[in-house]
């Protein structure tokens, strides 16, 4: 019998038992679906972590007060601050060889107003080096430079989101934004960076740090309630640099050996690496779970095929009586198992894609369709069909025609 005929026959036989066909396929569908969804999500999560890490700038350390959370508002009273502006000046003066740049960052979430609109955004007070550390260019106009960055000029560089919200499609350059009643002239718009660890990177308005102190913090204070971004010259200098900064600050704060640090130095690269490692481990674990469920799906196929062979004993007898050879019978059941597994595999790929898409949207990581994995999973499901369909098919082909014809259903 031709292979095409055998395929048609298999599809017709499976179609005749729709419910059972569907139930048999479920194991495969979910097995493959799980493989695709897990691999896709794992890769997406890893890429997301990597992107977060990259948007923060590489080789960066963050020095903050002990009690302050990173990115928290520097405005408002409350004790707990121990870092002083003098500490910053002292660190700068040390000229630590592994440090490339340093930038103090103050920030506050504030309402900002243009002629047309108003918007709630995060206002950063920093200087020219901040843009270098974050590797951020101007899409339009200019960035803060050495002069403006260290002055108390009321100028600002804004992110794409703020530009769109306040000025729509018009160019913001030369326009005025009011913050706390004070006018700021827009001198530049940053290139778009998209989503970052703290949300939309482009939802930002940058002003000189001195201006921030005077107009938003309302006065020059002794204590520094922000983040000091430190960029290093080399990837592997983190430990050494952290130790050096720590020893300078401990000295200045007169801490003895038994006292804990009253400041914090964080290394985002380390954190990103830890995140990446754990997502990798989870991905591996999930892949194993998926493989096991695929195996169980395969056993399900075998089980149903065995039942099917028994149920169709009489049919097998009839086919043999009219001239079906043992090989014909075996091929028929094997092809049925393969079609079952392959259709299940295809549905599984679709399901996995859907699930991965949903998860990517839900967790906000990029959607990656693992085409290679899908191809492998599909091939594996076909293999499962052959592997687990072979035994029932051989059983069917070994039936004796007389016994099969006498079989009562």
């Amino acid at each position, binding site marked *: *019998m*031709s292979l095409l*005929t055998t395929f048609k*026959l298999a599809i017709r036989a499976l179609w*005749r038992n729709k419910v059972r066909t569907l139930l048999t396929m479920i194991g495969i569908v979910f097995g493959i679906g799980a493989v695709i969804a897990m691999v896709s999500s794992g890769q997406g999560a890893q890429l997301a972590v990597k992107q977060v890490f990259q948007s923060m700038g590489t080789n960066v350390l963050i020095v903050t007060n002990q009690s302050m959370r990173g990115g928290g508002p520097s405005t408002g009273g409350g004790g707990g601050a121990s870092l002083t502006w003098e500490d910053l000046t002292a660190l700068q003066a040390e000229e630590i060889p592994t440090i490339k740049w340093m930038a103090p960052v103050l920030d506050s979430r504030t309402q900002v107003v243009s002629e047309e609109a108003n918007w709630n955004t995060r206002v950063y007070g920093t200087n020219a080096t901040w843009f270098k550390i974050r590797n951020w260019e101007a899409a339009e106009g200019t960035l803060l430079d050495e002069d403006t960055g260290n002055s108390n000029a009321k100028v600002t560089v804004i992110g794409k989101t703020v530009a769109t919200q306040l000025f729509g499609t018009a160019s913001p350059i030369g326009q005025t934004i009011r913050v706390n009643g004070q006018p700021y002239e827009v001198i530049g718009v940053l290139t778009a960076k998209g989503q970052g660890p703290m949300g939309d990177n482009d939802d930002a308005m940058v002003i000189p740090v001195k201006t921030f102190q005077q107009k938003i913090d309302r006065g020059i204070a002794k204590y520094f309630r922000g983040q000091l971004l430190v960029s290093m010259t080399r990837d592997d200098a983190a430990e050494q640099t952290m130790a050096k900064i720590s020893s300078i600050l401990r000295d200045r704060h007169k801490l003895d050996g038994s006292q804990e640090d009253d400041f914090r130095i964080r290394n985002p690269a380390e954190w990103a690496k830890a995140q990446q490692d754990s997502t990798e481990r989870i991905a591996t674990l999930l892949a194993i779970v998926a493989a096991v469920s695929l195996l169980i799906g395969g056993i399900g196929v075998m089980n149903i095929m065995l039942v099917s062979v028994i149920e169709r004993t*009489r*049919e097998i*007898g*009839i*086919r*043999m*009586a*009219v*001239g*079906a*050879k*043992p*090989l*014909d019978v075996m091929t028929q059941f094997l092809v049925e198992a393969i079609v079952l597994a392959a259709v299940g595999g295809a549905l599984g790929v679709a399901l996995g894609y859907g699930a991965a898409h949903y998860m990517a949207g839900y967790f906000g990581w990029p959607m990656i369709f693992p085409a290679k994995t899908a191809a492998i999973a599909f091939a594996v499901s076909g293999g499962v069909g052959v592997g687990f369909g072979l035994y029932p098919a051989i059983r069917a082909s070994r039936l004796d*025609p*007389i016994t099969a*014809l006498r079989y009562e259903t």
Partner: protein
Amino acid sequence: MTTPLIEMRAIERTYVMGDNLVHALRGVDLTIDKGSSIAIMGTSGSGKSTMMNIMGCLDQPTKGSYLLNGKDVSRLSRSQLADVRGRMIGFVFQSFNLLSRTSALENVEMPLMYQGVSSADRHKRARQALERVNLAGREHHHTNQLSGGQQQRVAIARALVTEAPVIMADEPTGNLDSKTSFEVMAILQGLVDEGKTVILVTHEADIAAYASRVVTLRDGLIIEDRQQTPVKAGEVAA
């Protein structure tokens, strides 16, 4: 002299049932010529079906030699036997043995599939076979939607479709009422007139009456073998 269609010499068939041996056939000699119609009679358990299964290459004898169309088939492989069945023999069973939830046409096409006949040819030949048993127009009925007589005619069409020279029918009227039995016998007799060999297993004398030769079995042995003038079923059925 032409080779006989069937030549059985000292055929024995023993079944093993646990520790017991069942001697279903205990040394049967039988020669059947091409184009004849023969009824195999006997009470239930006398070995009729066993004999037909061996003649039809569905089963192998425990002892003895069997030549089908001059060829020794008693030592063929399962695959070779399947091939011989497909080409030489059309079966008709008491319980019809059709595939349920499958159309009449597909049932009739089935033997041709295993001979590698193309789809278009299969359709054509299956339709013609169904016409020959007066079932034109019922091609797409599922077999479970047909009456017993109609189902048995589908089974006959399936036996005819390969143009096999031999039709073997094991109690073909066993599940039918007397009117439909006549119809089925009329068709089978028509096949003899066309030159086919029809071997009929039955335990009913009035069915055996349609054959020109009657062989009677008892306890696995032939006890009687006689020629007769067959009753014409066609006249009754028409």
